[in-house]
């Protein structure tokens, strides 16, 4: 495992450096905002004690909201991406700053403050010449806590499509690549430790008070400056085409394929936000808002989840055209080109059984089901359109039914603990060859054909974009998709390389 992690660092050195830089930028902006705002609020409530318990109460309460939900709450207001993450992180950082500033100032010996007033300081002079410097050690310790907290919290910011090392962690989780997750986590922890050490040095330095004034002040000023620089760095990226993808291996690959194709064909920068938490429920609104320009989506999801239409989407050209029209009419979005594969529920059976009894369809299966063991995840037995509906329609009666975790299903099949299971039709492990996907001959499961959803104004802005996206039409079938997934999930290849090789093989990009 340690070796795997090291290899990841060596292999994807640039990837990690970019993420690290982005991580530092996001944290730094949040830290700057929390510091300035936190100290200001802390000072204000230390001057107006009457409101202090109210303000501290509100801030305390906000602090108890789990970070994930906070990021979620902010999506409708600030959308997806770095700004949402920065705002959430800044809110979290407020508490330690406000509290320590307040405590630092209110705990100063009253005689000292009275002496400064008695000598003719104005309230403001007393604040910046006496109270603020004297409370600096307490404020600094709050600052240190806040910085460490912000750096680690930034790790979950990729949940709302922000960058930073969380991208590596999240990517590792979605593609079942634990070495990647560990590599990301170690990077976050090391960053936090290094920064903690640096602040410790600054603190020590600051306590050698003879030099405190100028040099410490410069360091304090430098922090917001770097933060600001980072902010401009981020806001410059506006002109690129922004692609989003859901947190699924398949979507990571497809978004890479689309991205590389666009970069090759059109002279435009592409920015891919991979694995946006919450999937469609967050990406679709962000697309309408303009945070993203396009993303791969499934017809079934669009029909049921986005359009909330009753019943199944019609098969074939007619149904797809209806979906296209509704998207244009309702959202001003275009559905362009279906890639060919259908990522839907399917039933898989062990190859030896299928061959022995000549089982090809679900109806064939029903004749032999009494002798077979069925395995599925808890979720599938709970859904109305899951196991119950399926077994009613086809008259399936298995010998035994086993509840089994998604991640263990394929192993259970391998050890012959189960004979039949539900799968997703593009699962990477299907291509291992010892299982067979059966045909849904009465069309029980809805179809989830994948295609690209694009903002219409982007199509107008880049006249050739539609043409480029149509290049992908019908060139990826279930088996191809499953193979690509296998390369990323089981062989642990980088999805960038998998996408590039695919495009080369299809002759869509020139071999360099």
């Amino acid at each position, binding site marked *: 495992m340690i070796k795997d992690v090291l290899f990841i660092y060596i292999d994807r050195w640039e990837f990690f450096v970019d993420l690290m830089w982005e991580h530092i930028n996001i944290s730094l902006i949040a830290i700057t905002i929390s510091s300035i705002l936190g100290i200001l609020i802390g000072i204000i409530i230390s001057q107006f004690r009457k409101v202090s318990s109210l303000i501290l109460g509100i801030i305390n309460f906000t602090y108890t909201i789990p970070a994930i939900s906070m990021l979620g709450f902010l999506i409708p207001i600030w959308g997806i991406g770095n700004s949402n993450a920065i705002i959430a992180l800044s809110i979290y950082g407020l508490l330690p700053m406000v509290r320590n500033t307040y405590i630092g100032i209110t705990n100063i*010996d009253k*005689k*000292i403050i*009275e*002496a*400064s*007033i*008695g*000598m*003719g*300081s*104005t309230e403001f*002079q007393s604040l910046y*010449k*006496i109270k603020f*410097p*004297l409370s*600096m050690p307490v404020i600094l310790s709050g600052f240190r806590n806040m910085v460490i907290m912000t750096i680690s919290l930034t790790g979950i910011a990729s949940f709302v499509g922000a960058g930073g090392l969380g991208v590596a962690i999240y990517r590792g989780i979605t593609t079942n690549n634990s070495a990647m997750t560990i590599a990301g986590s170690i990077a976050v922890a090391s960053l936090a430790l290094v920064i903690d050490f640096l602040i410790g040095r600054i603190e020590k330095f600051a306590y050698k*008070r*003879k030099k*405190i004034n100028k040099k410490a002040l410069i360091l304090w000023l430098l922090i917001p400056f770097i933060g600001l620089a980072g902010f401009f760095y981020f806001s410059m990226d506006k002109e690129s085409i922004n692609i989003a993808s859901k947190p699924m291996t398949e979507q990571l690959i497809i978004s890479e394929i689309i991205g590389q194709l666009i970069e090759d064909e059109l002279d435009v920068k592409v920015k891919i936000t991979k694995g946006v938490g919450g999937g469609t429920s967050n990406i679709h609104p962000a697309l309408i808002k303009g945070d993203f320009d396009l993303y791969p989506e499934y017809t079934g999801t669009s029909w049921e989840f986005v359009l909330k239409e009753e019943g199944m989407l019609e098969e074939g050209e007619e149904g797809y055209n209806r979906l296209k029209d509704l998207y244009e009419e309702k959202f001003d979005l275009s559905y362009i080109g279906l890639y060919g594969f259908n990522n839907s529920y399917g039933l898989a059976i062990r190859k030896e059984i299928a061959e022995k009894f000549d089982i090809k369809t679900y109806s064939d299966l029903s004749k032999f089901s009494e002798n077979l063991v069925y395995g599925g995840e808890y979720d599938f037995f709970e859904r109305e359109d899951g196991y119950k509906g399926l077994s009613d329609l086809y008259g399936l009666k298995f010998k035994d039914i086993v509840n089994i975790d998604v991640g263990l299903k394929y192993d259970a099949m391998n050890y012959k603990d189960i004979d039949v299971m539900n799968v997703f039709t593009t699962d990477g492990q299907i291509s291992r060859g010892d299982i067979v996907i059966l045909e849904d001959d009465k069309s029980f499961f809805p179809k989830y054909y994948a295609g690209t959803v694009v903002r219409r104004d982007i199509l107008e802005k880049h006249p050739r974009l539609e043409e480029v996206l149509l290049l992908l039409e019908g060139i990826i079938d279930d088996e191809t998709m499953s193979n690509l997934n296998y390369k990323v999930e089981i062989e642990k290849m980088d999805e960038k390389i998998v996408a590039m090789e695919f495009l080369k093989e299809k002759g869509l990009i020139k071999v360099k």
Partner: protein
Amino acid sequence: MNIIEFKNIYKSYNQNIVLENFSLNIEKGEFITVIGSSGSGKTTVLKLINGLITPDKGEILIDNQSIEKIDKIKLRRKIGYVIQGIGLFPHLSVKKNINYVLELGGKSLNEVDLNILIEKMGLEKKMMDRFPDELSGGQQQRVGIARAVAANPDILLMDEPFGAVDDITRKSLQKEIKIIHKNLGITIFFITHDIREALKLGSKVLIMDKGEIHQYSTPDNIRENPKTKFVKQLVGII
């Protein structure tokens, strides 16, 4: 000429009356020492002079001008203020402490004036870059006085300034404050709990108990004609 006048002052804290119909005149250039039991209101009187406390009723005149009409910030910068113990700012060097009042107005002592002041206060030049906690109690008190007189004030308020120093240091500090008073012609309002100190330093001694003035007179007169039982007790201690 009166530099400070109290006219029928009332002051209470949460129904606890501290001063009731309190009147007092202080002439320019006097060295007033104030002595009294704790809770006698002497610190309240001191803080009324620089406006840290405002009276409930009555009027205070500084240079014949009602304190209410004077800009408090400007007033305080012309009044030196020395308090016992931790009056120095711990995060500022000795030099910064001494220059504090002047810097509030955007000025600071030039090297010559600073050196004169340092010498006068029995301080050393090498102490200037040190911090208060690196000085002895006596040295801290000298810095406190230097800071109070650096801006060349008309009035010097001192609240038990020598309360926390040893006998030998106190004796030399007493000598120095006498010299400062003489040289600068400054009006000093000096609170102490030591009757010997009060009688030794004051050109006039103010004896207070429970917010009332028992006697306000020269040290000789107090020794010879103690007016009340309280004063007799105090003087009898000697």
